[in-house]
């Protein structure tokens, strides 16, 4: 019994394949449009996936808690003495002061991220040198030395020189000497980054002595992050306390939202395709009606004809999925998703050359299938039934 059923389905599959081949132009047009729709949706999904993975990787190295002073809803600098008030809280491994700001280079029309900190104080500070392609991080007393990212080096157009100058707010020049360069592996973080000592950063931005923009709090036990964050916000009520998990969730929401928004836009393309598929499946040529009538006269049942149509749909959607997803993968990995990147990543002048590597789990593939194949199957089932119930006598002209 089972043997018979399998053989029957195999024969029907065989017939479906040959029937698709006989109408190859029609099948091919549906296949290509379907593949294009899947390509768009899958690319979007893969970019989101890769970007949120990247964000997760990046955030893994951020301090567990970041403190910022807010005044009138805007961030401002605060005295280093705040650090003393954290002394009594157990579980804090280290507190590292930092100056974080953006420098707009009016000559090159680009924004640089400037970070002033004492790298020797960071828990993993001595390992930072491994992120450099050349040179070393400036130490506490090395005034005027900076480490710069790849794009800044290109933008400054230094040639063989290792010195350059930036303007202070009062338009006097502050000279810098390059002591090292970040490797391109960390481009997503360090592309537009300039790391210098705390004193240099204060000097560049004209921040009074003893002031910083953030405090990075490193916590030994990740389970204590929330408790310590609560204690800090009790001790320093004016300070905004950002925890790493909070930031991670925010990123996820933003990426999910953007990807959902993109998917809604692509739903229009999907709807157009479904209408096309419906139309292609319902318009029966006289030859097709004759074919169905002959099959019926030969003893085929309605269920067999429906099975043929089902297999045809499965073959078309399977091929379209393979085509569309492969194309999407190539688009994302080798062309860095050039079609969608502006939508998902925001805008900046110095664009890191991002290498995206989507990791598709079975669930993500199922998601794309649910988005595309289910509407397609549903759109073809009613036309399939209509064609399968063509009365044999009328079609043969009897």
């Amino acid at each position: 019994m089972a043997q018979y059923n399998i053989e029957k389905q195999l024969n029907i599959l065989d017939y479906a394949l040959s029937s698709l081949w006989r109408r190859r132009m029609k099948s091919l047009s549906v296949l290509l449009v379907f593949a294009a729709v899947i390509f768009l949706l899958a690319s979007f999904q893969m970019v989101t996936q890769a970007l949120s993975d990247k964000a997760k990787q990046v955030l893994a190295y951020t301090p567990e808690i970041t403190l910022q002073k807010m005044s009138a809803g805007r961030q401002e600098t605060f005295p280093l003495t705040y650090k003393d008030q954290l002394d009594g809280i157990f579980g804090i491994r280290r507190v590292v002061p930092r100056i974080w700001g953006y420098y707009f280079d009016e000559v090159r029309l680009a924004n640089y991220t400037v970070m002033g900190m004492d790298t020797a104080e960071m828990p993993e500070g001595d390992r930072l040198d491994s992120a450099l392609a050349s040179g070393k991080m400036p130490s506490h007393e090395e005034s005027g030395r900076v480490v710069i990212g790849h794009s800044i080096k290109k933008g400054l157009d230094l040639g063989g020189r290792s010195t350059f100058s930036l303007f202070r707010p009062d338009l006097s020049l502050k000279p810098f000497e390059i002591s090292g360069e970040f490797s391109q592996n960390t481009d997503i973080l360090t592309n537009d980054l300039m790391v210098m000592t705390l004193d240099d950063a204060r000097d560049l931005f004209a921040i009074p002595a003893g002031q910083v923009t953030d405090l990075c709090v490193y916590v030994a036990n990740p389970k204590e992050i929330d408790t310590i964050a609560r204690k800090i916000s009790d001790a320093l009520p004016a300070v905004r306390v950002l925890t790493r998990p909070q930031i991670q969730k925010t990123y996820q929401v933003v990426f999910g939202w953007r990807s959902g928004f993109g998917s809604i836009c692509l739903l229009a393309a999907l709807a157009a395709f479904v209408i096309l598929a419906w139309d292609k499946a319902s318009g029966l040529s006289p030859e097709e009606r004759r074919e169905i009538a002959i099959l019926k006269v030969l003893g085929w049942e309605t269920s067999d004809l429906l099975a043929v149509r089902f297999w045809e749909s499965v073959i078309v959607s399977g091929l379209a999925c393979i085509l569309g997803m492969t194309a999407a993968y190539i688009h994302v990995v080798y062309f860095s998703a050039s079609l969608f990147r502006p939508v998902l990543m925001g805008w900046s002048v110095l664009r890191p050359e991002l290498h995206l590597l989507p990791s598709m789990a079975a669930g993500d593939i199922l998601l794309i299938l649910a988005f595309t194949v289910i509407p397609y199957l549903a759109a073809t089932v009613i036309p399939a039934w209509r064609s399968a119930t063509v009365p044999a006598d009328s079609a043969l002209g009897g």
Partner: protein
Amino acid sequence: MFLNPWSLALTLCSFVVLILGAVAGKTAVRVLRFWEPGSDSNRQIRLENEIWLSSTLVAYGLGFQIITLILFVLAADQFCQVIVGAMCATGALLANPYGMPALLVKLFGVFFYGFWILLHQLDIRSEQYPLVRIKYLALLLLLPLLVLDVTLQTLYIAGIKPDIITSCCAVVFGDSTGGGSNLLSGYSQQELLLAFIISIIALVILGRGLLQRWQPWLAGLYAAGWLWFFPLSLVVITTVISSYVYAMPYHKCPFCILKPEYHYFGFALFGTLIPATFFGASAALAGLVRGKGGLAGVVDRYQKLAVRLSLVLLVIFSGLSFYHYLKYLIIGGEG
């Protein structure tokens, strides 16, 4: 939170299933009103064609519902990343009161769809279509379930606010020391495991007995056994088996075993349990329509096949569920 690819996919699939259901429902009403097996009027011939359409639609609907069931669990797993305090699907599903009911309705809905397909398959084996009226009455009864499913799912998705604090599975299913909400507590592991083993043995004995000599009351008992075994297995998987799969005593969660980290083990586990229960329970159900014209032989053949299939799947399921447990007993824990 509709603006998320997972919510959109779920909503889209539900929308498609609702449309298919509505078209099939229209046929059902016409069949119930105008079906006359003896007549050869135009309307009767049209109706006979239409029942093919509606059964195909319901078959598609069943397939889609199985996909949305998986999609729903995976989506919950994704949602947990944006809900503060949730660490896996459990936390995400408990984030609002509609999550768990939506999952349960989806899960049991799959069984009801399956029973409908079974009725349909039995019906078309007989030349007189003896089950048409029952089948379409059942279809009309299934539609509210479908609407309920979609409503709960939509309410759940709408109710997800990415800032509500919920419990993660370490609190919900773990041994609670504080006042955390604990879904499944108060069961002793040893007693549960004992009940699980006894149930498996009892089902095997009943099934063997049925295959040797078919008796309606025994078939009823067998079906009842499966209806008891299914929830028991879900509890046992959650409280006992899962923590052996994770190799972590306090991680008790029926959803994380579906993840790639655990080699999609959960799909094998639920993928044998659900069909096994379906076949086990449906054997007795098929017996109810045995008396209809021309169905006796078909039903007998199906019942034997269903019991045999359910036994085979049961053996595979128990093998899978004891694999990690025995591995732990024999070679000890991981590293």
